[in-house]
């Protein structure tokens, strides 16, 4: 279709540019703030061009030891904690959801539909709703301030189970039968055929769940009380204390930029599969 409507072109471009500005400007400001000294930022008006303290601020943030009133723990450690947490949550979620969807779709066992609906109903109960009892369990098990405590309660995922179930239902029965003819047992079929076929969905879920894990806030806030187990999101929160002026905003902003990098890398690297996984069903 060929369209020549200059006015429409102009308006749509304007909307796009405005949208980009709204989204990108705060990020830009964060970046600018992370390249100045603390004093320069609090001056009014705040500088709008990058300053000359980029390396210095980021090194301070990564190694810790700033002079702010809040936490001054090294961000490098926090990034590591965040990375491990996000990866464990993601991989765990995908593994468990694949297996439970496999069970629900391909095996006939008593109360199968009840199991499925039980999983489905938990979709409606986010972590926040059950946070009290979950905290009690985790703390009684002595998992506070540990990777296990940060990750295990977040691994079960009805959403992912449901997504894989829907995908498995579209896999033709004849494929299962062909595999049976070839002598593949259930787990062999799962490993050789079902998982490779699900690769696009797995990639899409990986992106979504990695960001979900990385951005966890409320749960780590309760579980991670020791500086060495802060994920970076909690780290930012703990760096800020009291009023506006006392904080080392340049370090906080550098940490914020650092916290944004891994999810961005994951999204950019997996963009192709991510879109495929959500849009295309290849059989």
């Amino acid at each position, binding site marked *: 279709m060929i369209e020549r409507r200059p006015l429409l072109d102009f308006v749509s471009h304007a909307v796009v540019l405005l949208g980009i500005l709204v989204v990108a400007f705060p990020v830009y400001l964060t970046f600018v703030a992370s390249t100045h000294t603390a004093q320069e930022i609090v001056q009014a008006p705040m500088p709008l061009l990058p300053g000359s303290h980029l390396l210095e601020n980021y090194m301070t943030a990564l190694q810790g030891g700033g002079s702010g009133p809040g936490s001054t723990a090294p961000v490098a450690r926090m990034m590591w904690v965040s990375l491990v947490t996000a990866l464990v949550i993601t991989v765990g979620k995908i593994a468990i959801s694949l297996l439970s969807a496999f069970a629900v779709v391909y095996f006939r066992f008593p109360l199968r539909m009840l199991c499925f609906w039980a999983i489905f109903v938990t979709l409606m109960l986010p972590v926040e709703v059950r946070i009290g009892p979950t905290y009690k369990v985790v703390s009684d098990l002595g998992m506070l301030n540990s990777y296990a405590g940060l990750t295990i309660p977040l691994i079960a995922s009805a959403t992912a189970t449901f997504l894989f179930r829907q995908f498995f239902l579209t896999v033709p029965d004849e494929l299962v*039968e062909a595999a049976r*003819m070839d002598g593949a047992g259930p787990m062999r079929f799962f490993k050789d055929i079902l998982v490779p076929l699900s690769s696009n969905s797995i990639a899409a879920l990986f992106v979504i769940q990695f960001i979900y894990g990385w951005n966890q806030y409320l749960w780590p806030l309760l579980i991670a009380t020791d500086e060495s187990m802060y994920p970076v999101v909690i780290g930012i929160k703990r760096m800020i204390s009291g009023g506006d002026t006392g904080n080392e905003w340049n370090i906080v902003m550098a940490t914020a930029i650092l916290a944004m990098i891994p999810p961005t890398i994951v999204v950019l690297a997996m963009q192709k599969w991510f879109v495929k996984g959500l849009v295309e069903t290849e*059989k």
Partner: protein
Amino acid sequence: MASISLRNVIKKYGIGPKSLQVIHGVSAEILAGEFVVIVGPSGCGKSTLLRMVAGLEEVTGGEIAIGPRVVNDLEPAERDIAMVFQNYALYPHMSVFDNMAYGLKIKKLPKDEIRRRVDKAAKILELSALLARKPRELSGGQRQRVAMGRAIVREPQVFLFDEPLSNLDAKLRVQTRLEIQKLHRELGITSLFVTHDQVEAMTLAQRMIVMNAGRMEQFGTPDEVYTRPATTFVAGFIGAPPMNLVSGQARDGHFHLPSLALDLPDSATPGRADTVLMGVRPEHLRLAEEGWPITVELVEVLGAERLLYSQLGDQAVIVRTDDSTLHPKPGDVLKVRPHPGKVHWFDPGTGLRI
């Protein structure tokens, strides 16, 4: 190579009073190396029967034996069979080579043996140049051949085909049909082939099983089935257009319809005087000077021949003629005579041949 014995095979879905029986005791002996086609309308249970032989459906009653072994309780993989599915069921993420080799890998055959068998099958099926491709990069006909290749490499006792040609276009279907025949000649493996297409059945089968509503109507060579149909169902199902069935009584050399008496050829008599069905194929009714009066209602010109849809008394008959000098129009009254010795008799109650 192995024979297949079906002994009073029954299939029911569900249990108790709500169960649904779809196969009502089918018995047949398929010889080793034979190519048998199961044909019938959709829903007649032909695929279910095949899937029971394959082990994909449980056998509710009776026995299925492949060679000397009763296989009722064996897993599909233990039955030494291979199956070609209607939608081919190729593994989409594997190359052609891996698709064919998968079953052998699971059997833990040595690598060079797998290579040898796949190469051999690929050569027979002209797939050698395509071994590295994925199924989605292949045409329908090529996918079909890969599906057959996957069956061949297993070197099974029995091949099972579940309507493998129905997803191909008409030209490819004819070509693949010939290839399957050639393959069977070369490998000589016992084959069971399910189809709803009678042309496929007639051309491929050494013997064919005609099924209807879960029962076996006839088991015989295509020639037997065509020339001596065992029931009215077979008479109507095999042959296009189907055999004409006219109901009436045969008395003193004539066949009496309510309003009409037709003179019969000398040899033709059912041997009983009550109401029977007379069957004559459309091509065995010849136009003649004297004979049975038919009123033409519709003419279909098929090039080499034409079909006259007509009324004989109060009953519909179809006449097939290759006489191109005649141009009958709807409403014309023509005379036809049956070919002597080509008149069939059926019992109207049971549908069985008399």
